[in-house]
């Protein structure tokens, strides 16, 4: 079938209503939600289990336990021995892994579609029956410490980012790194991991997302068979831990072996809480696209290409999350230019939008890119399941993804200018600088990078 036949397809009402129902959803008696996105292009399926539990739910002294438990989830149950989980997924021709974020912990398998049933059996088993064996824990905690060394301790940019967040957030748990502080890992016990599992790994704190060449009715029946017998349990109350208002700029620097300095400017920014009523998070997303959405967007064009003050520059803003939002500007100055010059140049670009706004052509371009990216996204089974899982994890509904797109398409130039004026506010700013150090400990050149 081809897009030329689009209009007849749209006129076929039975087909259209079927299509609009996709994704499909049901909720089991124990509170577990099951969301199915059918995509029949290839005979594969993605199975994901998302737990509404992440590093933001940890307490001081136990940072990293959400992620450590994720590792322990592969260490066996009474029915499935240590290492056996991976073995069975591999035997099914599958690939599997898991990821922990601030907001959630998720597990996935990509398999030939006939193997979905086996994957559900495995995930259901470890949802309530995990062994947290002390001997396995003792080995695995070392693996996690190696992971921390690799990802953070020996990676100057990650270290800077970790320190930035520890400074930007004082009360909210986003101040702690997902991987955990090294000392917390050193003192963590199997009992800590077990307590975490017992508290949070229940069907009513989870949802299952499946995408691929499957029939949703069959998947619902399969889910009932495997997950239906698991008991739900009331969850402890979670405290909001709202971050107090920041009332003045903060600056930190990190010294680490490197050649090039790095500058990050993080501004507190709003998060999407009500898809229909909110407007500012959409305007900020369009602002980010106008500044950094393509190679000739404002930042790269002006700072890297024309003025050559930066080797690279960018903006990161994610408007969905359980916790508070941040908008990050980041970059590396060109050789012979300082971090202070780069900061001034970034501020000048922001000021330009605050004063003069953005052009209709820029806004139209950002919207065109956004729409095309929606079509490209459909090329990935995994990506489609991820999109549903992530939006749900932030407390919003996948049913409103289309509405979010509509709202983005309606953002006006005036709204973009208004959020630029409101949120690039020094009182809500945290600046982090990587101060590069020579590898041999001897001074290599004057540390012109840091100006406090």
């Amino acid at each position, binding site marked *: 079938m*081809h*897009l030329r036949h689009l209009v007849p397809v749209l006129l076929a009402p039975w*087909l259209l209503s079927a299509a609009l129902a996709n994704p499909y959803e049901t909720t089991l008696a124990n509170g577990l939600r099951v969301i199915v996105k059918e995509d029949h292009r290839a005979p*594969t399926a993605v199975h994901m289990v998302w737990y509404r539990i992440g590093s933001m739910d940890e307490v001081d002294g136990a940072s990293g336990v959400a992620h450590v438990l994720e590792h322990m989830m592969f260490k066996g149950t009474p029915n499935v021995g240590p290492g056996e989980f991976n073995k069975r997924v591999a*035997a099914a021709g*599958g690939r599997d892994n898991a990821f922990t974020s601030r907001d959630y912990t998720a597990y996935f398998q990509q398999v030939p579609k006939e193997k979905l049933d086996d994957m559900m059996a495995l995930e259901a088993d470890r949802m309530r029956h995990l062994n947290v064996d002390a001997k396995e824990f003792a*080995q695995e905690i070392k693996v996690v410490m190696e992971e921390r060394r690799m990802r953070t301790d020996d990676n100057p940019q990650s270290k800077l980012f970790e320190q930035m967040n520890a400074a930007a957030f004082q009360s909210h748990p986003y101040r702690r790194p997902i991987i955990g502080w090294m000392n917390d890992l050193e003192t963590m016990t199997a009992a800590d991991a077990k307590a975490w599992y017992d508290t949070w790994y229940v069907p009513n704190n989870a949802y299952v997302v499946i995408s691929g060449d499957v029939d949703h009715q069959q998947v619902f029946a399969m889910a009932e068979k495997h997950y239906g017998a698991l008991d739900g349990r009331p969850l402890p109350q979670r405290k909001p831990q709202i971050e107090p208002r920041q009332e003045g700029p903060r600056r930190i620097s990190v010294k680490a072996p490197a050649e090039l300095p790095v500058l990050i400017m993080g501004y507190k920014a709003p998060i999407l809480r009500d898809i229909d009523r909110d407007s500012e998070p959409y305007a900020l997303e369009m602002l980010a696209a106008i500044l950094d959405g393509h190679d000739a967007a404002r930042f790269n064009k002006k700072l890297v*290409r024309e003025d050559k003050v930066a*080797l690279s520059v960018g903006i990161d803003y994610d408007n969905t999350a359980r916790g508070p939002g941040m908008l990050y500007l980041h970059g590396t100055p060109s050789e012979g230019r300082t971090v202070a010059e780069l900061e001034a140049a970034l501020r000048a670009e922001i000021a330009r939008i605050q004063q003069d706004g953005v052009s209709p052509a820029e806004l139209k371009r950002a919207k065109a890119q956004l729409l095309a990216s929606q079509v490209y996204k459909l090329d990935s089974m995994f990506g489609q399941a991820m999109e549903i899982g992530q939006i749900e994890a932030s407390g919003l509904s996948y049913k409103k993804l289309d509405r979010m797109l509509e709202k983005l398409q309606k953002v006006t130039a005036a709204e973009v200018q208004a959020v630029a004026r409101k949120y690039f506010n020094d009182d809500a700013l945290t600046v982090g600088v990587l101060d590069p150090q020579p590898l041999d400990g001897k001074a290599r050149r004057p540390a012109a990078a840091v100006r406090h």
Partner: protein
Amino acid sequence: MTMNKLLTAVIALLATQVALAGVKIEHWTSSAGARVYFVESRGLPILDVQVDFAAGSMFDPAGKSGLAALTRATLDLGAGKLDETAIAEQMADIGANLGGSADTDRASVALRTLSAKDKREPALAILRSVLHHPVFDAAIFDREKARTIAALKEAMTRPDSIAGKAFWAAMYPDHPYGRQATPESVATLTRDDLAAFHARYYTAANASITLVGDISRRDAEQIANAIAAGLPKGETISLPAAPRAPKGQLTALAHPASQAHIYIGLPAIERGNPDFFPLLVGNYTLGGGGFVSRLMKEVRDQRGYAYSVYSHFAPLRQTGPFQIGLQTKRSQAKDAIKVARDVLDAFLKGGPSDEELAAAKANLTGSFPLRLDSNKKILDNVAVIGFFGLPLDYLDQYQARVQAVTADDIKAAFARRVRPADLVTVTVAAD
């Protein structure tokens, strides 16, 4: 039609598509002499076009390492009448993405666009301009050169980059695969070097064009012909002398990092060699099978030495490497290397058990559909088949070739390709 309606319609189409197994590759040679590979895929209104040239870093002249990479990096920064800003803005206006990169063998230019005619035609016009008439503007060249040099200096402070560069240099002492771009080598490059490299290597005879997506064979022929016709005809490029086996050796480099980075390996196999399947199946058990491999079990699960440990074969145009990689706390580097070497030695001696061989085959054949379940994955696979001249039925035969491998095949192929005395080991930050 608005884009939102289009999206709804696309989703409606997906609901009616029937899953297809296998990939039908159509192949022909364009009138100008470029090899063309086409897979029609109507499920989504997307077209992918990738043009690959044998123009990777293996063709960098001695002393000018970095030329291939910089040529590719500046190719789309001004072409014909379009300056770099116009190229980026016009692509963004129609939601198209222009990408690609250069590795040791290949320089790639890749376009993803919506397949509707009013989108794909302007996108393809820009793609042709970039391939046929890159400007290599002097000021832009100077800027990109400075950025490249800065990035190389930064990489020289990273333990993993330092280890990777030293590893390739040790494996390929007499071959271009072992020569690395340095700040000094890039500093010698001129704008004219780039133009000359482009003229010599970005030719029809040296190109393979892969198209995947929502177009007809006739459209694919026209698109490929127009791309190839604007390229210089060129000639088939001769390859450097094949790499020779290195002398087994240990290179230990100092670094203040908390973790040691370790690579062990040697040049092992080129693309298209029949030993590939026994090596692929055998390596699944050794260190390719992720969480179920022997290296993972011994180094990570049993001892907690590393987060990541693996082995793989990376066949290239000429003899590509076998490599084992891991990172571990610097004080236990020697112990971790010993464990990895013991695992390798035991595997070379005994090969996989019957159970391991069956598990490897089950995964490699069973996971085959996952290799092809998106246009992007089909594009990647078909581009490799086209560029390296693998048989057109490579994907159709893949599962049978895996099934046919015996334990003896694996032991024999490993004995030929992974000779312990020739292994080079590189460590950075090991105590």
